[in-house]
């Protein structure tokens, strides 16, 4: 997956899982606040990322993620490592 595909896919599955509008999932927006995540929701976030993008982010990975752009960077890196 390239970055555009990652963004398109991520917008779809995050909006479905966390019931937010796709338009709210924008590069600069804060991931935790936009998705209204509590500690339990991070468990579900890992599940849907694994199901849709094929990798499991670690708790260390999440420490570096503030915005959706940070997440897209992480996903791009994971795909690059795979290939």
């Amino acid at each position: 997956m390239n970055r555009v595909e990652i963004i398109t896919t991520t917008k779809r599955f995050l909006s479905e899982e966390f019931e937010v509008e796709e338009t709210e999932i924008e590069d600069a927006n804060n991931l935790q606040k936009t998705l209204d995540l509590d500690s339990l929701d991070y468990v579900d976030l890992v599940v849907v990322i694994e199901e849709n993008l094929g990798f499991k982010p670690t708790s260390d990975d999440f420490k570096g993620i503030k915005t959706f752009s940070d997440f897209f960077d992480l996903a791009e890196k994971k795909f690059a490592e795979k290939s």
Partner: protein
Amino acid sequence: MERRVVITGIGLYSCIGIGKENVLESLRNGKSGIIYEKEREEFGYRSPLTGMVEGPDLKPYLSRRERIGMHQPAMFAYMATREALEQAKLDVDFLSENETGIIYGNDSTAGAVIETIDKVRARKDTTLIGSGDIFQNMNCTVNMNLSTIYKLKGINITLSAACASGSHSIGMGYLLIKQGLQERIVCGGAQEINKYSMASFDGLGAFSIRFDDPTKACRPFDANRDGLVPSGGAATIIIESLESALERGAPILGEIIGYGFSSNGEHISNPNFDGQYRSLKMALKQANISADEVDYVNAHATSTPVGDSMEAQAIHAVLGSDVPVSSTKSMTGHECWMAGASEVAYSLLMMENNFIAPNINFETPDEDSKKINVISEYTEKKIDCFLSNSFGFGGTNSSLIIKKFVK
């Protein structure tokens, strides 16, 4: 000082109707909620007969976080509780500020547990189960979900007592309020409906195999009965102190005056006369009424050969031959963990509307049921006081007596 305990709201999510109005119509018309489920036949059931109610869409009412920990018991119970609280004029703002408890009957979460374990089997990674499953898997699932959603601050316990769970939940709530320890309690019972939940029960050969007409399969007290039919859904009963109900201007649907209970202390599945007899006697004693003051008995009778006979004998011994008796399980099937609560709700609807719902399919009495007055047709009757029996595996028995409220 002992306080009076009244019922101020009921809610039903049943195979004979979603909501009180639909259930009332079915009770009047003797309408059965039993179907033949092909999926159970393919799964290996000896008897694919079941009561059926579809799962509700909760998205209009609850957030994702509120829904994610719910499987059938909690989903059904939410719908029943929503209706009951509305009738009782209770909302989340009031409940969060005024101590209210919840004692809900439930005794399985098989469907949820198996779906969770299937995920682990497929993916071999527990971190991919998701966060909601644990709250679906635990037997206290109804309590966890409803106490959180409605911000309940009082007693919060699940009551597991097999097919008497719903009845004991009301009885235990009654005792707490009577003693002044609680003002109001959300009571009830929930029963999942899925092929996983009843497979082992079906394996005992206890279910009816009268497949030609599913609506005729469940025939409590009839000489030609051949077993029960499982069912499910949820029923909620809001109970509170008389003072609280009057102060709030809540509708008073009835007053709980007696709760009898006992344990057989014998066989794990076979009922016995003595346990049921003692439960009935204790309820009458607690209520401080004589047997002839009971206008109607909603029997536990499930349509099993032995169970119905024992109950007919116990009713005859304690209440005599004349009191009208019917088993609404003839229409609903056996709602198991829910039954003790739903049958109180069905009986309250009868009391409010002056009729006895028929024990459908009662065509031929046997040697025990001919000794009691089984009502097989819709019958208009003023009911001032009724008794509801619930008996469960392990020999747990509960009898509740409820009367019309008189100031």
